[in-house]
């Protein structure tokens, strides 16, 4: 415990489980410091009055979300193996996607396809995938470095249909797959498109 750490009882005060009067005299000053911290919390409302118009403007230029639903409806998927060997791009030597297997089980909808994402990025410290399949969470799907030449891979089982994604290199660089088709995401970035 460093000298910056609040006493556990003072943390209870900050949590609202105790009042200042509950603290022993020797902790009162620390308790008052803690309450000054909370008093500085900015709880003023924030409003974006033109948000609705801006969102609707963007939404009205996009395809119907019901279209995505149709693509995710169950359909038969054949076993396919289709490696893509991709051209170099920046520090990324190549990327490829391999359909590993078709439907994993005979279970009903949606049909699932196992896909391996491969990115060769020798300089990267970390690579992950963000896409429609993980709510664009750049932390949800890390790739694993699988070889000495900077090859990063992740294997996912995804519903048949169309997915958009990007590689996230070192947590900050959003890089579309240089060999996959891409679409403008409407915010100045390109998303790669994968159709299974």
């Amino acid at each position, binding site marked *: 415990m460093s000298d910056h*750490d609040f006493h556990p009882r003072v943390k209870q005060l900050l949590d609202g489980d105790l009042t200042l009067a509950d603290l022993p005299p020797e902790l009162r000053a620390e308790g008052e410091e803690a309450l000054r911290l909370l008093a500085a919390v*900015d709880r003023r409302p924030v409003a974006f009055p033109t948000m*609705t118009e801006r969102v609707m403007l963007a939404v009205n230029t996009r395809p119907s979300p019901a279209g*995505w639903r149709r693509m*995710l409806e169950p359909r038969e998927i054949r076993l396919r193996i289709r490696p893509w060997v991709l051209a170099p791009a920046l520090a990324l030597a190549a990327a490829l996607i391999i359909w590993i297997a078709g439907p994993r089980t005979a279970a009903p909808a949606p049909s699932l396809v196992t896909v391996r994402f491969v990115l060769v990025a020798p300089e990267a410290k970390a690579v992950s995938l963000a896409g429609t399949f993980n*709510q664009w969470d750049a932390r949800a799907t890390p790739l694993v470095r699988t070889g000495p030449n900077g090859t990063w891979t992740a294997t996912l089982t995804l519903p048949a249909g169309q997915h958009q994604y990007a590689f996230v290199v070192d947590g900050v660089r959003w890089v579309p797959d240089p060999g996959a088709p891409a679409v403008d995401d409407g915010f100045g970035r390109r998303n790669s498109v994968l159709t299974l």
Partner: protein
Amino acid sequence: MRPETQQTDADIVRAVLAGDHERYAVLVERYRDRYARYAARMLGSLDAAEDAVQDAFVRAFDQLAQCKEPDKFVGWFFLILRNRCYAERRRSKAQAPLEAADSLPAVDRTDGGAETAERRRALQHALLELTPDQREVFVLKHVEGLSYGQIAERLNTSVPSLKMRMHRAYDRLREQLREHK
């Protein structure tokens, strides 16, 4: 048809998926300000927060068919916004560290004057030094006023782990604020 104010989120989600895109504006109107403050405090910048909220609404529209429980649209939307805020913060930190808090309106002359504004600014700077997980639990509890139980439900985690995160945040904030003096 029920008036817009009485329509449930699920009613609206189904209508949008059935092709009535204009109804999506009701959802945006209903939730835009509720989450504006969360985004602003998480990102430390009104401009970045506005972009993140707008982006999250557009992404939620694109992925609306994947909202498995339309009556829980708002919780689902929150997770999309949360992920955008995390990604945006990582990006902005790499590009422009520590500029963000200055773009929040710190001075509000009707609300305590310069001293209050300075304390708020110092705390917002300190918040930006926390890890995103620590900052989030602090914002949800002390800015949005949620209980640990409500936060745990929203983030699908446990109260003890949230408390541990928060208690580290308190210590870190104290350290940052002392250094700021």
